[in-house]
């Protein structure tokens, strides 16, 4: 099978198991919506404009639910030592990495597709075409977060306290992408011109490229026991 075929095989397996169990997507969605509800009670959005806080609220929900997605994704491989079955197979380990990244992106995107419209309604944001501009930004930054998150999730998966270690290692490394995501989203929601946030988009794109390339090159060593 080709490299891309192996990537699709791993991602397809994750999607199929998730469609059957629905363990992950329900947890992620519940968690993300809970974040929105908490912020809705914490701030009076009849006084505060959603534009000033919305980007932060959305990315808090996406990043924390993303950590849950990553943790769950590798927990499945840890149970029954399934990751050993993958490591035994004659596939490029970076295909396994990219398959996991692709599945995480899809799970996070599914959550985002529900959470964004719900937040628009919940926080009385006046719907405009600007919201559509946020979509590519969500994709760009979700790719970066999934790329770095999958790398760290794989690194911690064979450790005893992986659930604790993953956020401890991931959050500092994810600061640039989180910062870029929040800044770009808030600038777009506020209707600022492109040149005000172009540098943040460049940062996100560079982050995606660096982490995806580095992880593809290093993933063989990451999974060594």
């Amino acid at each position, binding site marked *: 099978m080709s490299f891309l075929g192996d990537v699709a095989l791993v991602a397809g*397996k994750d999607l199929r*198991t998730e469609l059957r169990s629905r363990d992950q997507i329900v947890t992620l969605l519940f968690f993300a919506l809970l974040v929105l509800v908490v912020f809705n009670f914490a701030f009076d959005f009849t006084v505060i404009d959603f534009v000033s806080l919305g980007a932060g609220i959305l990315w808090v929900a996406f990043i924390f639910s993303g950590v849950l997605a990553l943790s769950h994704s590798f927990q499945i491989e840890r149970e*029954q*030592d*399934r990751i050993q*079955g993958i490591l*035994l197979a*004659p596939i490029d380990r970076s295909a396994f990495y990219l398959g996991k990244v692709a599945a995480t992106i899809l799970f996070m995107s599914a959550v985002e597709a529900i959470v964004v419209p719900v937040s628009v309604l919940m926080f009385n944001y006046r719907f405009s075409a600007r919201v559509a501009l946020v979509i590519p930004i969500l994709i760009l930054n979700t790719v970066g977060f999934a790329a770095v998150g999958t790398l760290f999730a794989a690194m911690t998966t064979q450790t005893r306290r992986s659930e604790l270690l993953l956020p401890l290692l991931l959050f500092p490394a994810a600061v640039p992408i989180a910062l870029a995501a929040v800044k770009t989203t808030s600038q777009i929601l506020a209707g600022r011109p492109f040149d005000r946030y172009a540098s943040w988009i460049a940062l996100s794109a560079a982050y995606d490229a660096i982490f995806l390339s580095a992880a593809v090159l290093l993933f063989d060593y990451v999974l060594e*026991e």
Partner: protein
Amino acid sequence: MTAAPAGRRAPALLALGLSRHYGPHAALDRIDLEIPAGEFVALLGPNGAGKSTLLRLFATLIRPTAGRLEVHGLDPRRAERAPLARRIGLLSHQTFLYDHLTGLENLLFYARLYGLPDAPGAARAALRAVGLEDRGFDLLRTYSRGMQQRLAIARTLLHDPDIVLLDEPFTGLDPEASDRLHERLGGARAAGATCVMATHDLGAGLRLADRVVVLVSGRLVADRPARELDPPSLGALVRQAAREPDAAWSAP
């Protein structure tokens, strides 16, 4: 990469001073073992003897802390991984299978991972070989422990590996499935596969093996041809080896 001398076929597995440490604990300590291609070796020893660690080293899942390992004359650290991986099948304590996939989907997933030319055909044939064709469309989580073990055996042999590594393969199997596994392993051996089987079942070990190797506390303490042993003498050998690991037992 190390090549065997001309005219001599490289052993399927060669361990020279092979050690594996976990922190200060030596799971395996300077193991010297040569397993020619086509031989069936039973690996015996008490719990914690290092049998599973040795199988995982042979499967190239972990690296030795010291010593040298060769698989068909190749050093796994230097050789290309994929061709070597295609030649090895490992049945571990864990099944490596996914609860939310059906039996057939699990085998299909592995058949595709191994790049088998007719993955659906190979998956169906493997399912038939372990007598699970009627349950192929059921989710794995509905299988009993014994059925999961049968499916794990099908996964291990799916790609016709020429090195078959088995860790307690008879666990959870009913007598019929046990007989079927004996038959499968006999067939694999007849086809020239090298088998290494860790087991506590002395009868099964002797019935299948050409050679019996006993490990105690990470050390190889006995190495005998199976034909010299019967279950009572093998039981006595294992117990004696566990009591006196320093006695010289290696007398093939």
